[in-house]
């Protein structure tokens, strides 16, 4: 899943380590989210959204590839 986490993080002048500490996760988690290797849990996604003050849909971009049939 593509996302704008890196862009928003840099706009706030934070490095990955500082950003990870603010969210109480590891730096590897932030790095994996930013490179698209790992999709955060709903809880973490909401925490990131709250941190940046933006809705989740503006930060995480879901581009198809779902396991279910669309209505």
């Amino acid at each position, binding site marked *: 899943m593509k996302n704008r986490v890196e862009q928003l993080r840099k706009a706030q002048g934070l490095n990955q380590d500082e950003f990870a500490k603010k969210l109480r996760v*590891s730096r590897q988690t932030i790095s*994996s989210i930013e490179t698209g290797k790992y999709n955060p849990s709903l809880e973490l996604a909401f925490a990131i959204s709250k941190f940046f003050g933006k809705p989740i849909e503006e930060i995480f971009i879901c581009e198809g590839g779902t396991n279910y049939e669309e209505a």
Partner: protein
Amino acid sequence: MKKRDLITGILYMVFGVLCLAAALLRESRLEGVWWGFAGAGILPGAGMVCKYFYWNTPKNKERYKARLENEWIERHDELKTAVRDRAGRYAYTFGLLVLSFGMLLFCVLDVLDIMGNARLLVLCLGGCLLFQIVAGIVIFHQLMKQY
């Protein structure tokens, strides 16, 4: 660090000293076990007591807070938890394969008279294999009940 950690360390040391006394004062076939327990009690206990006094000095308090926070993050980080779970699954599967292969190997060695009395070993390995499979299924169903 909490006083509870100091008390735990002291209790470990007391237990270790009691086992040491049992090893030194009594002659028995279990002497090796007593020595083992003595070491397992005294050394970690002493470590816990030393850690308690080291981390409770005023100059180390902030460092200890940061260390606790890092430990909390390492334990609860979702990516690391997911990777640890996956590693556990791989280790479980690999363990089953090793047990199965071990049983086959010792069976063959016994039949070819290369190794005597392997039957008990094969039965033990088979018991471990069966236990792991059954435990895996039972624990899975227990955990699913939450949902």
